């Protein structure tokens, strides 16, 4: 069974952490992954940077830019990830925009994922129709998950379609927003989370966007299998005390 399926079967209140590859220092990628697993992360999303990240707010824009300026590209990332599975056993996803993936070649990209032990991808600007028509076979024949996003504006019919195409979990956005804003749980958000839960989807749900505290993480766990933290974590990284800053950040959520 895949690492992702096993995780969702065995655990509740799953804590998933996003970070940008090659940030704060170019060679920190695997070091951060290792420290995160030690500090209790259940799932990792490693961002491969893109020059024009339209779905991201200022924090991830800045980390992406710094990473690119330091020389990160997909070739180097897969090189760095060769040692991933010697040090990390939890599921790992790659997250990024479609253009770098297209230039690398989707098949090459998927082969490289399998080679280094990456379990799947999140590519927010890869449309469902294109995925279905051109890429689903490539992903599934290699046992890779592709994670789709759902927002409060996504229709129930479309959510069902997404559920049918998903084979890992569904990434539920707390609101329609770029990354890095604080989650405001209003009556509307709660009724949206409840509405999705009522659909009784085949795939587990993870809530992301705006989770930056124990309270917001607990809220996510109340309605879904867990929560995803991105900008808040990236912001907390201290280059001079990388492991220490990761440990301190994770303590807040594990207490």
């Amino acid at each position, binding site marked *: 069974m895949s690492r992702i399926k096993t995780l969702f079967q065995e655990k509740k209140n799953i804590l998933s952490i996003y970070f940008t590859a090659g940030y704060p220092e170019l060679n920190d990628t695997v070091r951060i992954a290792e420290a995160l697993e030690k500090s209790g992360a259940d799932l990792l999303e490693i961002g491969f940077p*893109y*020059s*024009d*990240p*339209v*779905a991201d*707010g200022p924090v991830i*824009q800045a980390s992406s*830019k710094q990473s*690119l300026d330091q020389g990160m*590209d*997909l*070739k180097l990332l897969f090189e760095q990830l060769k040692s991933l599975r010697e040090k990390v056993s939890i599921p790992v996803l790659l997250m990024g*925009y*479609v*253009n*770098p*993936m*297209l*230039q*690398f070649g989707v098949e090459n990209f998927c082969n490289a994922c399998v080679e280094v032990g990456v379990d799947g991808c999140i590519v*927010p*600007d*890869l*449309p469902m*129709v*294109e995925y279905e028509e051109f890429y689903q076979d490539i992903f599934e024949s290699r046992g890779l998950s592709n994670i*789709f*996003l*759902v*927002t409060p*504006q*996504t*229709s129930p019919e*479309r959510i069902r379609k997404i559920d049918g195409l998903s084979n890992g979990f569904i990434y539920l*956005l707390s609101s*329609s*927003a*770029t990354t890095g*804003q604080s989650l405001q749980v209003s009556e509307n958000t709660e009724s949206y989370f409840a509405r999705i839960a009522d659909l009784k989807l085949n795939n587990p749900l993870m809530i992301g966007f705006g989770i930056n505290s124990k309270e917001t993480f607990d809220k996510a766990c109340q309605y879904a299998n867990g929560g995803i933290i991105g900008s808040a974590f990236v912001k907390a990284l201290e280059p001079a005390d990388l492991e220490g800053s990761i440990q301190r950040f994770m303590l807040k959520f594990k207490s």
Partner: protein
Amino acid sequence: MSYFVNEKGYYGDFGGAYIPEMLYPNVEELRQNYLKIIEDESFQQEFHQLLKDYVGRPSPLYLAKRLSQKYKANIFLKREDLNHTGAHKINNTIGQILLAERLGKKRIIAETGAGQHGVATATVCALRGLECVVYMGEVDIKRQAPNVARMKMLGAKVVPATSGSKTLKDATNEAMRDWINNPVDTHYIIGSVVGPHPYPDMVAIFQSIISEETKKQLLEQTGNDQPDYVLACVGGGSNAMGMFYHFVDDEKVKLVAVEAGGKGVDSGFSAATTYLGKEGVLHGSRSILMQTDDGQVVEPHSVSAGLDYPGIGPQHAHLFKTGRGQYVSVTDDESLQAGLLLTQMEGIIPAIESAHALAYLEKMTFTGQENVVVCLSGRGDKDMDTYMKYFGL
């Protein structure tokens, strides 16, 4: 072969809607409604009334006699520079604001490079009493100060884009982020034939008035509605698509698109997308864009803020790849010289964008009989600083 969009939103290999899920409902709402709304009689009537009484259309097709003598061909200028607000951009913003109203939107956002699209958007928002936010690169805000002042006077909020090269591409990113964060009440008026389907088609339809009028005017003036050549500059490519639209299926008419060569196509300071670019995805559609081997978008350069964009619209990519259109480039210097030449031979100061199309005339050879239409997409008032510095006026 079709040069227009198919039911899946593609032009051959190009187009589509590569957007994050947050934008899907907005784009889908547009896709389902744009043709229905545009084809509706009340829309058509209001659109054409405003184009006539407010924009001042039809814009003249002017036979530039002295320029014609010089180049040994009949050079016609399609005078989009005489439109209200000084460029072709208003054709599209009038169309999109009427569409936004019919979709019940209350708030308008836009990106702008040279500021022409920003001004055209702020203008129609003032006209219809809608809130307007314009994203503009910090660099462009400095080099296009008069347009920034115009937008502010028109009541728009101008927000500087401070990421990346701080130009048009980055302003577009910021506008898309705004739309993601305001998914219900906001309409994004994209200014060019770029973006996810249906934008490239919708903007081309609104700009197609340029070639629709040109055909009629040519028939009146020459007895033949088929020119030998039509020329237009291309950044994202909206004036070019408007100029080409009704000639695309008529293979006798040669389509010439002039890109910004900057300091030279191989100088590292250029925006000549078809020469320097590769296929990829930018701002929601598959097209041709300037990028590294890793798929990172390369910062373009042009003296003209309106052409300083690393991609082209998907329909242009299709016209280029099929060979239907000829895609060429001229340098900053050549364009500025062409701007001065038109000013002194015809008494028309062109926008530096439009001067790119004029500059290519120097590189063409004619027999004396050809009818050539150049889209004079905008006037040069906004570029006086650049002209004055360059020529030491």
